[in-house]
């Protein structure tokens, strides 16, 4: 027995392989890639130039510097589209296997319930990474084809080099990935409650919407900083000079708390669940 197998890596590789071979996964990543493409084409073909500050943040700068396509796309994708695709993947984790009947065979194999849950979590995170990276990479490619690429002027007015800008893109992608961890954990927990994957997916997406709405009601300010969507747009702090890591830290802490709480709920539910499908 190889040592990698002892750690259960076989199942992780298998999970990633099954996930990323699926047409649905590839189609979702393709759709994510279309966001920067449409955005860039719209700006490219439109005759009106936006006044500085008009439209979503950075949109006015896209035509001057292609490297902004990725950032702007992230802002556009964050509230709905990205959580939608993540809801699909996270909601499907356990419920999808249960619905298909493969869950019983994985457990008899025996995969071990904790091991399976952790594997599924890793798979879902891999999808989040793939999604945020797709946004950035597709944005950079289409941006550099249609628009000039050069040193980037940040919100603070400072100018950074192209290389530095690529590094910031990676930071923004990782910030976005971290932002989605809480949602992934919530989705997985809901997924252990049902054998209907579509139900788990919808519930997860709805929750991300509810959280964002609550975050926009000033009277509920007390709970705002505990909402898992609260820091989602905070990645713009990474586009300041010097970088403001404060929201990165608060966000990471908040997401970690969600992962711990909903991970524990998912585990306690899944560990004792009768698999009757």
């Amino acid at each position, binding site marked *: 027995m190889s040592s990698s197998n002892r750690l259960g890596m076989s199942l992780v590789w*298998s999970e990633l392989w099954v996930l990323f071979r699926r047409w649905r996964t590839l189609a979702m990543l393709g759709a994510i890639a279309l966001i920067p493409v449409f955005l860039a084409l719209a700006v490219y073909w439109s005759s009106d130039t936006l006044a500085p500050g008009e439209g979503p943040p950075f949109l006015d700068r896209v035509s001057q510097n292609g490297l902004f396509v990725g950032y702007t796309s992230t802002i556009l994708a964050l509230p709905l589209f990205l959580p939608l695709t993540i809801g699909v993947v996270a909601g499907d984790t356990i419920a999808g296997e249960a619905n298909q009947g493969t869950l019983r*065979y994985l457990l008899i194999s025996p995969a071990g319930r904790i*091991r399976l849950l952790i594997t599924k979590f890793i798979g879902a995170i891999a999808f989040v990474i793939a999604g945020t990276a797709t946004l950035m990479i597709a944005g950079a490619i289409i941006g550099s084809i249609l628009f000039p690429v050069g040193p980037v002027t940040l919100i603070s007015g400072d100018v950074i080099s192209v290389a530095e800008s690529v590094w910031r893109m990676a930071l923004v992608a990782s910030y976005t990935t971290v932002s989605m961890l809480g949602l992934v954990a919530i989705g997985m927990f809901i997924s252990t409650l049902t054998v209907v994957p579509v139900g788990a997916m919808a519930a997860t997406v709805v929750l991300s919407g509810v959280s964002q709405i609550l975050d926009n009601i000033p009277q509920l300010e007390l709970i705002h900083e505990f909402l898992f969507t609260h820091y989602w747009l905070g990645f713009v702090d990474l586009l300041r000079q010097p970088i403001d890591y404060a929201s990165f830290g608060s966000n990471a802490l908040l997401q970690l708390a969600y992962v711990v709480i909903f991970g524990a709920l998912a585990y306690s539910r899944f560990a004792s669940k009768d698999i*009757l499908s």
Partner: protein
Amino acid sequence: MTSAENYAVWTSELTKQFGGQTAVNKINLAVPKGSVFGFLGPNGSGKTTTIRMLLGLADATDGEIELLGNKMPKQAEQALPRVGALVEGPAFYPYLSGKVNLRRLDSASKNADPKTREQRIDRALAKVGLTNAANKKVHKYSLGMKQRLGIANALLQERDLLVLDEPTNGLDPQGTREVRNLIRSLSSDGTTILVSSHLLSEIEQLCSHVAVMSAGKIVAQGSLAELQAQNQTYLKVVTPDAEKTLKALTDAGMKPKQETKHGLEIFTSEVEHGFDGDEVLRKLLKAKIKIKSFTVEQASLEDRFVDLTGEGFDVVQ
């Protein structure tokens, strides 16, 4: 209760309740090592629920389970790698090929050696005759092929126990026969096999031991020979001479039932187990009775099964 040592599966007072309903009611199942054990019962009698508990998929409400000497579900990690199972039909990822599906399920087991994986998968596929369809997507498989792939999954590793829930569901006669042969050959290698089925002829042909479940309880359990010994024996005489036969049989101390079919009289009479027909036959011949057929036969397992589990569609309330 005897010690669990000689049994591949052993349960004590195993019970499962769903809400207020008792699906499995204090059963003591004992599957001897090396046996081919037929697990019978009408649909809804609790067979599959029992199997789910044996494999740790569902928690027992009460009672104990030992699977290959390991307490379930506590020692599932020790027991399950030695168990191959087909539970409530095969289930696969439809968008993956048969081979890739097996690779997926095999990699789920910590005990499966990745170095021998491909070799083991090819061997299992060959055993169920799916080598040519190995790279076809499972959604293109027929029901019988999926069933065979399910059996191949159970055979991915050397197993001490195979649990096969309705293994011939959806198979054509050739496939059924192949599965039967497969079970025989696996059994001769020393693997204990627990087969659940409602196809009685199948059990009769295959099994050394049988348990019959009805409405959550085990109503009969033992070796097939023991169970058959309890079956009623009948004398059956077919003749055109109704009156003379009735008299002769009544004189011999029997109370035959009579029915007419195709202009012939059929007399059936319950007789003791081990009944020797010679004497009666001689008497009938002496009385110059024309005899079309004279048989001493035992009730089939099916008759016994219906005896134990009740008649009709509504056997489970």
